[in-house]
């Protein structure tokens, strides 16, 4: 299962845990599993069926470009963090 590092403001959903295990072959399945374990994740992370524009996903140290379709490995380390570029209002100079 992948390890998901929980951002500070979502740790209330995990009872304060900063990392949890979740399964899924892509980000969609991973979020679904997180939501099963800790209800509320889908609402926090998804909008119109995809990752919210304000959120970026880093998998094994690389920023994903595929939203919910981004593949997740069996032992991947997954971070959800504020997005830069594309999905935000100040993409950089």
């Amino acid at each position, binding site marked *: 299962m992948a390890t998901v590092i929980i951002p500070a*403001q979502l740790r209330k959903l995990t009872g304060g845990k900063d990392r949890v295990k979740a399964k899924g072959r892509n980000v969609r399945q991973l979020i679904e599993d997180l939501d099963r374990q800790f209800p509320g994740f889908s609402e926090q992370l998804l909008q119109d069926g995809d990752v919210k524009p304000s959120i970026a996903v880093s998998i094994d140290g690389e920023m994903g*470009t595929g939203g919910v379709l981004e593949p997740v490995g069996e032992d991947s380390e997954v971070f959800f963090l504020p997005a830069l*570029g*594309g999905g935000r209002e100040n*993409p*950089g*100079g």
Partner: protein
Amino acid sequence: MAASPNGHDYRVIGTRPVRHDGIEKVTGQAKYGADYNFPGMLYGKILRSPYAHAIIKSIKVDKAAALPGVKAVITANDLPALPDKMEQAGEMALNMSHLSANIMARDKVLYDGHAVAAVAATSPHIAEEALRLIEVDYEVLPPVMSVEEAMKPDAPILLPGLRNKEEGPDKPTNVATHLQFKRGDVNEGFKQADYVVEREFKTAMVHQGYIEPHNAVGIYNPDGHATIYCSTQGSFVVRSLSAAVLGMPEGNIKVVPAEIGGGFGGKTTIYLEPLSVLLSKKTGHPVKLTMSRAEVLRATGPTSGSTIRCKMGCSKDGKLLAAQIWMAYEAGAFPGSPVGAGAMTIVAPYNIPNLLIDAYDVVVNRPKTAAYRAPGASNAAMASETIIDELAEKCGIDPCDFRIMNGAREGTPQTAGPPYRRIGYIETVEAIKNSPHYKSKLEGPNRGRGVASGFWFNVGLQSSAIVNIHTDGTASVVIGSVDIGGTRAAQAMIAAEVLGLDVNDVRPLVTDTDSIGHTDVTGGSRTAFATGWAVYEAAQDVVRQLKERAAKLWEKKPEEVSFANGLFTAQGDGIKPMTIKELAGRLARTGGPISGRATVNARGVGPAFATTVIDVEVDPDTGKVQILRATVAQDVGKAIHPSYVEGQMQGGTAQGIGWALNEEYFYDERGILRNTGLLDYRMPTCLDLPMIETCIVEVPTPGHPLGIRGVGEVSIVPPPAAVANAIAHAVGVRMTELPMSPPRVLKALLSKRTRAEAQAAAAGS
């Protein structure tokens, strides 16, 4: 040959050819947005709010519309009402209601200069006269000009619909977002620390200061299609956002990017573009809108002013143990300051085990902020890099050594968590430490030297490229990335490198939105990285096709043909190696023309670090700070055209020094901007700056075929703190507010003298 950091020897990359667009620019032939004129063209002007915060009770346009020569008058009622939520517009997600209301105020004006109506007339003078005939009835409200005022519980509310998660759905607020980043236990970290420094910093709202004001020519055709000519960093962004604001299908708009006279992030959004189309639709004529300097300063996006409280602690041998930061950024009239980026950059160069950052995005009655070169990072570094300098001083450790000791390396966790891949931060500090500048002695009274570092993420995003081979063996490179900092030359060099051509045999072209695949903005230091990657792949596509043609000529399989150093070869009797030029003349007989194509959604972005050393002399009688010498070291991955890379490093440093010493928006008590021209909004000139020295550091980005990192932004991050640290070492005062203008420095010096005199008097008594 130029040596590559990843072991390649390049023939073209790393050299310094004359830019392809140079002659057109220096002879005045290059066409900028305001240079476009069309038969029957009308001139548009915008009526702007004289109040910082007011309800619009009514707008009467009858008298203006009746003025001879006036062809149309529009207000926000002529634009579709858009939903107050984040929505996708093409490839971007924005609150469309906010975007539309920033372009034309609907119910309220939210800053001095907010657009309330627009006119199209047969001359600019008639259009200006018509503006005076528009009657707007305002109910003036108290302005909220700072984050401190805006965050008070009883503050006037700018946007009645604005809510945040913490205060809940029933509580109107000016705080759009609160972000938090947390690692370890800061209380425990501070307990272990021998030295703790805590200060509050304020930085002023500043403008990008691009020389060319915004402009747009809109041409609406009766078939429902429109063309926009404008100065922009992103023609596809203009298309997406204009379509959303106008309620038009995106594919019905073509955007032709003009040459651009600077942007620095400020031209990644829209202001005039949809209005030019709407006025053209109403009049049946092309309509040109251009801003004055005052309009640019009053009504286009500067970057945020900010308040940052920063506390950091270390052991006496110099190990950083904890950092706690509270930061609030002015978003302007609508949410969207770069506070998230500020939070994620503020201690990004360091490995700190215990960290707590709270960051707030706050609306105030100032223009909606836009991106400005490493948005949010310079404000942040002013705070953290000043404190780092103080901690190094307390430990008695050289500031470069302190940074090397605590600096981020491959594997160090970033603020948001993911570990860095291969980065070159330490190398930038070492480059400064070993520079002739840092090794030189700085002598004389009131002189000091300061060091600071900076980080910027860089972004990847999407780019498209086409490489065409002509029958004479020359090539053209077609891209959608607007050329701000030497893009054409860099892209031509990449194609020339791959194809084995002379760089002057490659013609680079920046084209419109109908002529190339989607390409994101020239911003985020992404263009050389991502568009360069697309050009590299498109050129490789050309090589692949040419191998097929050579194979056909030689009656070989394509995989039997090799290509190196500009020559196609294959094993076999009578086969003579061929250059592209020789092969290009045979294309018609071997299958027809060749175009290589590639698109990328670039991954594996390499972040950028810079370290800067600045020497200053402070006039103790006036507080004026003179920059004596400045050197910047930056990790650029691989410099494609070193002159343009150095230009970016120098340009960012110059802007950072302006931010440090002089630039700020002056608002009066009514929230009216008082310095609306470049005489009063004081950017540095060549008389204020020495030649800025550069050290190019090349630590290639893993995964990129050329190892490129973005180079356009990070050099603006260290200068404010480097200057503040230099002032501290020159005259012994720690500056905590930007700009460090003569009155502020003098005030700090006088306070220091007063304290010293009081202490002397106390000691004497």
